[in-house]
């Protein structure tokens, strides 16, 4: 790219950067500021931007299942029941996301490898089916899946959510992985097969280790999407014991008794794991997102 020389142009670029940075950070700063105050402090001066006080009580009350109320909830007569399920929801979210990541990587790499290597008419068709499947809106799936899971007695189980999310994300995983397998030279497997490897062990011992960066990229994207998924667990798991974090957050919507300080605190806790992942694995996510969108 061209180097910018004139001082005026440089100033304009700095200003533009400042605007973008403010736009990105504004919602998160607002969330943080609300989460460290009490309802009283937020209501005291509705023109005030900077925090009036600093308290961790919002986080404490969530993390102790409502037992340790601290100063700001001392006299509160109402705490949403679902906040007390925060730990169970975190655990459910973790189980679901880890399982979905594992299953999509496992099945996705098997498929993506054959799509990249074995050019038959049906593997090409499978690739096309995956491209189309990636576009299916969740709501179209959820109505029939609700009825099917209901009749199978699989409502309010983690298995139902894991199976549904795996199927929903598998096409995307295949689209991310296939271009990468395409770049690994086939001679490596052929050499291994001459040495007596079966096709499968050549895949496991030669190709998969080489594909670690792609598996990392795909895995972190799968984890993030399933950590964020709302509609599937919202419809399949209505019982508090089986809720995931996004479902708990959705249950606070429209609750007139819950004030922003508590809402923002629980949002902050729910977004923390994926923010840490994104900051640590930025390079892989960038590669994965690009690979999943075009044939590469």
């Amino acid at each position, binding site marked *: 790219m061209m180097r910018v020389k004139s001082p005026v142009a440089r100033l304009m670029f700095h200003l533009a950067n400042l605007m973008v940075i403010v736009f990105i950070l504004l919602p998160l700063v*607002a969330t943080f500021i609300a989460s460290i105050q009490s309802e009283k402090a937020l209501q005291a001066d509705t023109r005030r931007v900077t925090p009036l006080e600093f308290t961790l009580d919002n986080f404490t009350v969530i993390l102790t299942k409502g037992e340790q109320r601290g100063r700001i909830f001392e006299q509160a007569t109402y705490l949403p029941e679902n906040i007390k399920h925060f730990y169970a929801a975190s655990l459910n979210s973790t189980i679901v996301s880890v399982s979905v990541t594992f299953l999509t990587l496992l099945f996705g790499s098997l498929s993506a490898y054959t799509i990249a290597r074995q050019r038959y008419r049906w593997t090409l068709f499978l690739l096309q089916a995956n491209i189309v499947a990636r576009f299916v809106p969740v*709501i179209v799936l959820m109505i029939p899946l609700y009825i099917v899971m209901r009749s199978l007695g699989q409502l309010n189980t983690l298995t139902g959510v894991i199976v549904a999310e795996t199927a929903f994300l598998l096409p995307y995983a295949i689209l991310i992985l296939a271009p990468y397998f395409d770049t690994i030279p086939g001679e490596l497997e052929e050499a291994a097969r001459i040495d007596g490897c079966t096709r499968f062990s050549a895949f496991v011992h030669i190709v998969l280790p080489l594909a670690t960066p792609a598996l990392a990229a795909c895995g972190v994207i799968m984890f993030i999407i399933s950590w964020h998924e709302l509609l599937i667990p919202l419809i399949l798991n209505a019982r508090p014991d089986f809720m995931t974090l996004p479902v708990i957050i959705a249950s606070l919507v429209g609750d007139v008794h819950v004030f922003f300080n508590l809402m923002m605190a629980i949002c902050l806790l729910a977004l923390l794991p994926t923010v840490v992942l994104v900051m640590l694995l930025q390079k892989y996510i960038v590669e994965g997102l690009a690979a999943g969108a075009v044939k590469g």
Partner: protein
Amino acid sequence: MRPPFRWGRGRELSASWFAFFMNVPTLAFLGVVLAYPIGYAVYLSLHRVRLADLRRGVFAFAGWENYSRVLGDPLFWVAVKNTLIFTAVTVSSEIVLAVAIALLINQAGIWTSRITRSLILLPYAIPPIANGLIWTFLYSFQFGFLNRILLSTGLIHERINWAGNPDTALYAVAVPYVWRTLPFAIILVHAALQGIPRELYEQASVDGARAWHRFRHITLPMLRQILAVILVLRTAFAFSVFEEILAITQGGPGDATWVSAWYSYKITFAPPNNFGMGSASAFILALMVGLMAVVYMRTVYRRVTL
């Protein structure tokens, strides 16, 4: 001719059988949890399925009744209109912003661009439902963060009801949606920028081309294909926006932010739980999105390389 399949030690699977076995899990998942439900959705949309029918487990054939009721429902058309406006607004602003920001973070020798680049992906990490709730706080009429900033800096003197005004509510939902989904578009444009040969620009500056001309005649033509990818993908996904609607406006005020996915959700999962009509409306949404999918597969997906 496909060689016959044989079990046995030491015998190698033929390439085609190997390919088949490697794909058994995927085919099973796609068939049972993706293709079958979509087929079942078509079945449901042609039958009378209410909560009482669901309890009995018998669905009476209804022909096109669900479709004609959906198509005759004024609220459905309001939802379609809102979805189209929402999609047009979000996708067009995303493309403009993505190109601008990608060029910005691509600048060498501007130290603030490095900070921006390190933050670009942050919104991608925010759960959509949390994003919706966060913006509910920003927009709040009485306690909201936006009104606080604007009032304390003296930019406005009256509070603004950002999400509560039927004329602006749809745009109020569009901003958080763009905020959350923009990183994807920026990353694709930024990757495509790396693929433009430097020589093109060097040649142009020898010829004395101004910055705007370089952008108009070199950068933009080289970005055309990736912009087509972004256009199709983001359009398809904006068609089924749900979380931000649920968190910020729940379709309101009035019907100002009813969109297609919200319509199907409410018809199906809110009383009186009309699963048949919900399936019919969801299937119409799927057809619109499916059209985008075919366009994507046939034209833009295979041509672009990064």
